[in-house]
């Protein structure tokens, strides 16, 4: 366990170094972003000095790193506000949105995957496959726009904007979260339902399931006790991996619906070369990703005692 944590920390450090190096290599800096066309050599010089951009890059990185470790994430260069509060509040918003998407998707897709496996080759199976493959093939920025067109602009039953009133909790705009959560759910549904179906089909054709049926167990018992328990193992891995995928989806969906989450902030930081803000966002995302993977592995061990880690 200790070894794993050291590895996680090492990975995080490498990620932070990579992000910093890549941002440094790209042309332009945040001073140019802030001033834009208004930039004159004098104002650029003053602003760079005010933002501390005159310091050599390695020195800035070391200063940032030690600050970050101490919990002082610094000030956003473009927005001029403390990063810690900003990132944590945005992360909380993203968790709410992602959580709703998961609550919608996980039971629905596992149920659908199982149903498809039981009705293998029949119309229900084909239909579920079709929905799943469409969800995989259509990127969020297309499905999101289609959902907005249909439900917000034509039917006018769901808000197109997921903006949160300043200072309010994201739960206060719950109806506004339906469309973004559903957009995320479409992609998630595809992965999880197809994985559930595949492993359920495999389990259903196994000897022990046949034996369970033959010894006269009712179908519901066979499914809950034998099929589900075994078919869920690979599915859980997929769900864990989806948490990483979800961040990518969040960037698109949050941007599209104007939802103030971490993905939207990440994109803003990257586009504007706000390196301290970008680093903080990436660190949070990378930590979430690695914790999700770690959690998946541990859960895997609980469900399958044969592969427990030392």
């Amino acid at each position: 366990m200790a070894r794993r944590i050291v590895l996680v920390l090492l990975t995080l450090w490498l990620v932070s170094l990579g992000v910093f190096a890549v941002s440094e290599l790209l042309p332009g800096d945040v001073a140019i972003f802030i001033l834009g066309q208004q930039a004159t050599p004098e104002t650029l010089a003053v602003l760079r000095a005010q933002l501390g951009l005159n310091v050599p890059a390695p020195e800035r990185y070391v200063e940032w790193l030690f600050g970050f470790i101490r919990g002082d994430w610094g000030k956003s260069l473009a927005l001029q506000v403390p990063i810690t509060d900003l990132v944590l509040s945005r992360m909380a918003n993203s968790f709410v949105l992602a959580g709703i998407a998961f609550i919608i998707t996980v039971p629905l897709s596992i149920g659908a995957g199982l149903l498809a496996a039981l009705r293998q080759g029949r119309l229900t199976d084909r239909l579920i496959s079709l929905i799943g493959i469409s969800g995989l093939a259509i990127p969020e920025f297309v499905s999101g726009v289609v959902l907005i067109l249909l439900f917000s602009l034509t039917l006018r039953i769901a808000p197109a904007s997921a903006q949160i009133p300043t200072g309010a909790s994201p739960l206060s705009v719950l109806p506004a979260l339906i469309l973004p959560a559903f957009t995320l759910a479409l992609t998630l549904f595809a992965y999880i339902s197809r994985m559930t179906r595949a492993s359920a089909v495999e389990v259903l054709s196994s000897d022990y399931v046949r034996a369970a049926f033959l010894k006269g167990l009712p179908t519901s018992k066979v499914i809950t006790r034998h099929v589900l328990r075994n078919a869920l193992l690979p599915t859980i891995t997929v769900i864990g991996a989806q948490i990483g995928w979800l961040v990518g989806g969040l960037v698109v969906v949050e941007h599209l619906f104007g939802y103030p989450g971490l993905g939207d902030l990440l994109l803003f930081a990257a586009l504007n070369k706000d390196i301290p803000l970008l680093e903080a966002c990436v660190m949070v995302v990378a930590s979430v990703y690695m914790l999700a993977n770690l959690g998946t592995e541990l859960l895997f061990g609980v469900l399958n005692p044969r592969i427990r880690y030392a």
Partner: protein
Amino acid sequence: MHEYLGHLTDDYRSGRVGRRTFIRWAATLGLSAPAISAVLASCAPAPSAASPTSAPAPPAAATQAPAPAGTAQPVKGGTMRVTGSPAVEINPHKLTSNGGIITTFPCLNFLARVSADGVPQPELATSWTPSADVKTWTFKLRQGVKFHDGSPFGADDVVATYKRLADKSTGSTAASTLNFLPPDGIEKIDDSTVAFHLSRAQADFPYYTYIYQAGILPANWSGDWATSPIGTGPFKMTSYTSGQGSTYVRNEAYWENGLPYLDGIDIKIWQDPSGELTALQSGASDMMALTPYDALDDIRKNPNLQVLSSRSASYDAMHMRVDTAPFDNPKVRQALALSLNRQDVLNIVLGPDGGDLASDQPVAPVLRDHVDVAMKNQDIAMAKQLLSEAGHPNGFEFDLPTHSGAEWLKNWALTLQQAFAPLGVKANLVVETSQVYYTHWTTVTTGVTEWASRSTASEILNSAYRTGVNWNSAHWSNPAFDTALDQLDATVDLSKRKELMLTLEKALSDEVPAIITYARSSPRGLSKRVQGMSQDPNRYLDLRSVYLTS
């Protein structure tokens, strides 16, 4: 009172000066609104046929509520929802983006405000008087105005605000716009009088009090807008969430009688204009602060929405470095300019009502000092001949960088590229992000750049076409032009100004340091329930006399 005002009044009475020009020039030189009205009432000269638009209204006495555009009686109440782009800098002295402008403007007042008609109108100043040489301007300040925290507004606040703007170490781009205003030239005469001693003559000075960084803040302001938003303006900021938006309530103690009508404002920040458009279409917002040109059709089609469009002096320019081959030969630049059908270009890029045509000079017809120079027509034969004479009978190839930060700009660059093709000239379009483009836009051989609207010809010409200035991306230098520009800023005589403007505009149109095919209009998409919104060439945020109908 400036001595020229007597001549101006005589010229107006005898019909030598049109009503529109008279109002704008008399207001600039400090003739009060009642005095202007009195002159207008005392004679009814022949209507000026040359006037490109309807005559502007005389400046309203600032203590009266401006008449709203709607016919209905204004109703009090309601919160207006506005969407805008990210505010990267919200210190009012250091604003650089529209997001920052709309975040701070509801709270602020200026010494003077330039109306959509181009008339500088007293705001926190009640009057101003230039010296005979227009190098010293004395402003009388309004009495009894209070900041949002209840502290009184006075000369110290004006002096402090302008000293911060003029001081290079503040890091405000206003310091270069106001490069004729030395920090120690700002003098408090008494509690309600401030004098500006300029380092050179500037006949347009009142217009410069409405540059967007010049909102008046208290002398003791902390410097942090997010935690201490303050001003004398019609609204008080009640919350600000970085990157998300801000909210405002009516300033109950506001000094303009009966204003504002709205209870409050709710501004939401979107990173992407398509999200803003959706919010507007679905009724989640009442106005898009910056409406993209390509969204106007969708907005006009929606029965609940309207487009408010204002002529402006914003424009797009393709500069060509006159010190770099092949553009060092003026014939090459002239040839490219002749390849364009300017009306077609406007129709394609912005739509037929998207702006006014321009003949490679940036002083738009909407500006007070604009004079007409011959409009260039497409002439491929002539263009080919010029190219041959310049030694490029078969054309040439070059890189044309532009950026993706302004959605129409790439389309304009594409139409240029198409127009050059019949000459054998191949422009390789390089679309960069705006951050990358603005690292090198003043050094690249050619580049396509968008320019925001400004209130005076002098500011436009000084910022980008004078020899050696930062934004002179064509590296163009014309001593006669520079001399005429110096004289323009020092000249109050209208007929002399007209001659100078002709020299300036013709120099640009003839030598073509930059291709400029139009002045853009400034459109805004808003809900039909929004009434009383004034036209605004700059697309700032003036909601003083706006009200909502249900």
